[in-house]
């Protein structure tokens, strides 16, 4: 934790302009990812996980606007950098794996060519060498019979295979940073395990920093070193994995853990989280966006949002009345 983090996001706020008003999608989001580390952002749908990833990659929807904050990557503030600089970084220094590989891949281009495109774009190889390097990448992500598969179109491959192709594209230029946005949604458990093992292993080999966006606490626990919990555009808690599960401090984290089915708990013992996400279009949102759902709410929760440093190094909890 001593060196400069690969990616450090600092007090990031993002708004979306919509027909029904301005949505404050992210507010004061800060976290860092170190070299060789895997960090998870977990949260339910609508918590701002993907918006965070998209903002960092500079591929935010046109309606979205960064109102505050920085995202520093290799000394460069990604949020201020010109598009040309971002183009150079994306794919080479920093890559992203998307949620649905079948949609993210070009359906009318052979997968081998799509991998070669990235290599050619960043000028690492000559036109002659590119196909060979693409096949090597396919081998690396353990696709059997890579010479034949390089000539396949995405529709000819299974979901798990397509996700491997996405990983091959993302890792083709040995990036320093990988953002994986729900990389295994819609895949079977056995395929999910294989894909996550692969990401973790390749990450370790290359000393790559990985940001995993997921709603699956189990997956975050199994693969990540550090977990950031988001709720309605706020970071409510961030801590090293073991610490977070052993002693969740934010009431929302505790509820989330209690709501997740696990082998040792019966159906009636699982606790639902009451209430819904607050309406982020409202002019006045409570400083703690969880307070309306919270059982430990106190009067000062309506006044200001605390940023309390936890007991353990590197942990943060945003709560006046933590567990």
């Amino acid at each position, binding site marked *: 934790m001593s060196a400069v983090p690969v990616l450090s996001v600092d007090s990031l706020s993002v708004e979306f302009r919509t027909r029904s008003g301005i949505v404050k999608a992210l507010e004061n989001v800060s976290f860092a990812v170190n070299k060789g580390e895997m960090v998870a952002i977990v949260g339910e749908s609508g918590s701002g996980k993907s918006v965070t990833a998209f903002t960092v990659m500079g591929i935010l929807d046109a309606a979205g606007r960064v109102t505050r904050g920085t995202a520093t990557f290799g000394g460069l503030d990604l949020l201020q950098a010109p598009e040309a600089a971002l183009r150079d970084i994306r794919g080479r220094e920093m890559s992203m794996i998307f949620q649905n590989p079948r949609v993210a891949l070009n359906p009318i281009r052979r997968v081998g060519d799509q991998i070669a495109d990235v290599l050619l774009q960043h000028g690492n190889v000559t036109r002659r060498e590119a196909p060979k390097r693409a096949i090597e990448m396919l081998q690396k992500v353990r696709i059997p019979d890579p010479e034949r598969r390089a000539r396949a179109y995405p529709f000819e491959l299974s979901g798990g295979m397509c996700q491997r192709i996405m990983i091959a594209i993302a890792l083709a230029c040995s990036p320093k940073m990988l953002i994986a946005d729900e990389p295994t949604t819609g895949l079977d458990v*056995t395929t999910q395990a294989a894909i996550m093992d692969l990401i973790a292993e390749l990450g370790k080999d290359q000393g790559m920093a990985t940001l995993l966006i997921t709603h699956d606490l*189990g997956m975050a626990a*199994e693969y990540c070193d550090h977990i950031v919990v988001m709720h309605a555009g706020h970071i409510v808690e961030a801590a090293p994995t073991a610490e977070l599960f052993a002693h969740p401090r934010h009431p929302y984290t505790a509820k989330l853990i209690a*709501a997740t*089915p696990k082998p040792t708990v019966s*159906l009636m013992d699982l606790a639902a989280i009451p209430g819904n996400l607050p309406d982020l279009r409202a002019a006045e949102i409570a400083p703690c966006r969880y307070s309306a759902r919270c059982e430990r709410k106190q009067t000062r929760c309506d006044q200001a949002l605390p940023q309390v440093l936890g007991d353990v190094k590197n942990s943060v909890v945003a709560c006046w009345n933590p567990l």
Partner: protein
Amino acid sequence: MKDLFNKPLLDAQALYKHFAVGRKPSLLDRLRGTAKPVSMLHAVDDVTFTIGKGETLGLVGESGCGKSTLVRLLTRLLDLTDGSIHLDGEEIGHLPAKGFGRSPYRPRIQMVFQDAGDSLNPRFTAFTAIADPIRRLKPIPREALKARVEELAGMCGLPVELLGRFPHQLSGGQKARVGIARAIAVEPDLLILDEPTAALDVSVQVVILQLLEDLKQRLGMSYLFVSHDLNVVRLLCDRVMVMYLGRIVESGPAERVFRYPAHPYTKALLSAIPHFDSLSGDAGHATPRLRISGEPRSPIDPDPKVCRFYGRCPNGTEACSQAMPLLQGVGPGHSVACHFPLADTAAADIAKPDPLIEDVA
């Protein structure tokens, strides 16, 4: 366990569903006698099982294993290639799927679909969606219909004010409730649930699962619960059936199968679930990791002598490529289709009396 459900509600015997793939031979080829036989995709192969009254049976397997085809056979949306389905002692397997919508059996088997958002008609309000099956299958006067739909909404925890809304105005959990209310509207005996919570967040998932359990108790339905989330199956099911490439590879009481899986595939499925038990300080349940590599074999014209899991199986031997293993008992109500069932089942039995046997006694 069987004794508790003496006469099964649904009795499926030796179900087969094969699909022809590739081009049919041309007339010329047939006349010449050079026609190659049409390749067959064995989607469901020799599947036999029962569902007792009030029982929840879990069906587990990866995509492409034939779960959905099996479900469509049972809901009579597809015709069988061979086999028989008895509902409460009456044969329904031979009824053509095409006319089943008008059969008196239709209301007795209903289904909750995977993605509530996609399976609701976007032009139907919640009220119309729930009323539709009643209008079609068990017509009642308008006034009674309104009262019935409101009653159903109440049972499923859907606020009556939301009945006028369209699917896009409802949240994921609310859409799931509409899907459930619609399915139970005609009072089915058997409800088939196809991953009812796959699209939901964990906090909502819990509520929907508890609702399903509550409805089952109140209405005395039987469930067939299809899912690939084993943690969810474990919560809801009495018995569980594991399917691989069209065949049942293991079936038994849920608690037992999860604790002492006898088939290497079941074990691999279980160990692939990411969990955080050891971290949160719950009772240690460390499953040693077992990863299976590769893709499943092709379901097209499979060799009837080779175990379907052969090639991916960590314990596979030559015997597995010479004879297809058949389901054999490895414990009370627990059977497995493997030449080399995992040994810890037997060892565990000696170490610990089976709680399920005690229950029956």
